[in-house]
């Protein structure tokens, strides 16, 4: 199409369009601030500029007092241009696009039958654009979905948000697939009839593009479901950890059943005790000798000083035997005393202390008496009854009732 054929209306549209697109560039900074924040800042915008922006419907005022905001279309355009996945909008409304295409086909055929070729060209152009738009919507939506997938929904930080975003994306895929299903090629073929140009635009090209979209969407859907499963597993792990920790904090005495005693021990708990494969130096193989002697040579010399054997102390041991020997001698002397009592002809008891003095034994009297009593107590019961042991006792003092043994006398019981 060349310019000469463009009537006045079209050229006026183009001039206005160019002017208004230029507005976007001229006020790019303010507009981007309006995109990033809630409002477009008024500073730096002249009264004229503001008026132009408003009439181009780049910005609008929701209410008189309210601030200046970007119109939804501009916000969408920016989101699309910068691939801002958090705000990118997926438009899956195929029904309306199809409606438009149907009516354009009708107009095209009307112009064709009237022989109005200029009008027919215009309709064809708009039809091409409508088809491209519909195609572009799918392409954009699929691009946006891939972007989100490949970043693992990195534009939101919390796992819960990722799960929600994934859920939203899956719904979008379903809507897009539903939209694709609305496009009925049988109907289009019928509408197009025998017109070769229309057939090319609406059937062969579109069919090929849509089948690509369909494959892409199925793949995206598959990947989204996989990713969702991963998110869910991650969520489940987090919940399990925090839930179990909370439970154990609340129940400090919690003890699970003794799984080790069950007839079927759960596989997870069957972890065998560790075994160490120890090895030691062996001298029974001649070929190992060089290695072993090399090892021996490399053994570091211990740093501690040598201990002289003569410095060891047998003294304590001697002391022990000495005491035992004296103990035995005392025991033997007491036994001799007992035998003496038995062997004597007279029945009268003998004082143990007198015996000690007469026999010139060197035992201290107290030790002697103690052993004599101990010997009597150590006898078997039957033999004990054969002796009569009499203790001469006296009170410790007039005011102390403790009895002190002064002497014992031993005689045979009659």
């Amino acid at each position, binding site marked *: 199409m060349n310019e000469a054929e463009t009537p006045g209306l079209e050229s006026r549209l183009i001039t206005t369009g160019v002017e208004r697109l230029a507005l976007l560039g001229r006020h790019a900074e303010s507009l981007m601030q309006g995109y990033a924040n809630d409002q477009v800042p008024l500073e730096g915008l002249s009264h004229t500029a503001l008026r132009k922006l408003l009439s181009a419907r780049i910005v609008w005022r929701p209410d008189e007092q309210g601030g200046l905001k970007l119109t939804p279309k501009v916000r969408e355009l920016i989101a699309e241009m910068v691939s801002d996945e958090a705000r990118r909008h997926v438009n899956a409304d195929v029904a309306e696009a199809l409606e438009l295409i149907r009516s354009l086909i009708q107009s095209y055929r009307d112009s064709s039958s009237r022989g109005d070729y200029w009008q027919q060209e215009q309709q064809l152009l708009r039809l091409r654009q409508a088809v491209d738009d519909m195609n572009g919507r799918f392409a954009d939506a699929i691009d946006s979905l891939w972007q989100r997938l490949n970043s693992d929904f990195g534009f939101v930080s919390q*796992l819960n948000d990722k799960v929600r975003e994934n859920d939203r994306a899956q719904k979008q895929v379903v809507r897009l697939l539903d939209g694709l299903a609305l496009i009925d090629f049988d109907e289009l073929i019928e509408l197009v009839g025998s017109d070769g140009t229309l057939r090319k635009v609406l059937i062969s090209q579109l069919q090929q593009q849509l089948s690509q979209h369909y494959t892409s969407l199925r793949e995206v859907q598959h990947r989204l479901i996989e990713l969702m499963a991963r998110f869910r597993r991650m969520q489940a792990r987090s919940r399990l*950890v*925090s839930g179990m920790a909370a439970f154990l904090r609340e129940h400090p005495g919690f003890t699970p059943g003794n799984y*080790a005693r069950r007839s079927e021990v759960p596989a*997870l*708990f069957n*972890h*065998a005790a560790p075994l*160490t494969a120890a090895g030691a130096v062996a001298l029974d193989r001649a070929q190992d000798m060089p290695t072993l002697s090399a090892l021996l040579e490399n053994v570091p010399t211990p740093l501690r000083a040598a201990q002289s054997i003569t410095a060891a102390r047998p003294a304590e041991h001697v002391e022990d035997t000495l005491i035992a020997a004296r103990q035995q001698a005392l025991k033997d002397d007491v036994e001799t005393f007992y035998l003496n009592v038995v062997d004597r002809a007279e029945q009268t008891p003998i004082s143990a202390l007198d015996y000690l003095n007469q026999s010139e034994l060197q035992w201290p009297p107290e030790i002697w008496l103690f052993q004599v009593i101990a010997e009597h107590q150590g006898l078997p019961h039957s033999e004990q009854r054969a002796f009569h042991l009499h203790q001469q006792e006296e009170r410790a003092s007039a005011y102390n009732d403790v009895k002190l043994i002064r002497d014992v006398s031993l005689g045979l019981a009659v």
Partner: protein
Amino acid sequence: MSDISLLPHGPLLERLLAGEFICAVSDESAFKRLQDDDTREAIDSYLRPLNRRVASSQEEGVYFLAWRQLDDTARDQLARQLGDTVHSLLPLLEWLQLVQEALGRDSVLSPGDVLKPGELQAKSEDNPSLRERIERLATDSFFGSQSDQLDAQVKQVFKRLREHGYLLQPHADRQVFLVTGKVDYLLELVRFIRDEEHLPVDDEGEDTQEALL
């Protein structure tokens, strides 16, 4: 009997016998070999006289040795081990939670994740609540830190986790740790205990985080 020679698997056998858990992080090549049915079978028949066999976690993320026959000695050992495990559950779970929150991660640690004690320490230095939690955790008898210094506490916690096989330190002189597959094994144990004891611990359904707040 399998024809596979066990000669190349000596070091692996030794690690298994020593009670280690083998996962893709702790020893990738050994893990791959253990995934092979024939190799596992060969190792099993080798271990038969030692009353042991190769076992894996439910999701086959780790391999370890299990008793082949559960005699009384084996059961006694397992009962003691179960006691130790139950005792270590809370400190381990609290540690997992703490790391997740301190490092702002959106999920629990998984095998292969990289951890730097320095990072955890830096995050906790200006955060009294985190600091307090680390202190409480480190002085728990499972971690057994005697120190009141944050860096020593963090160090002790990492040391114990390495000893228990939950972390791997690829270079002894670098304070960088890798999370091993034993963490997954731990979570499988937790899930098992939860199911078996019917504990009111939910890991599915809608957000419980709001409820916790």
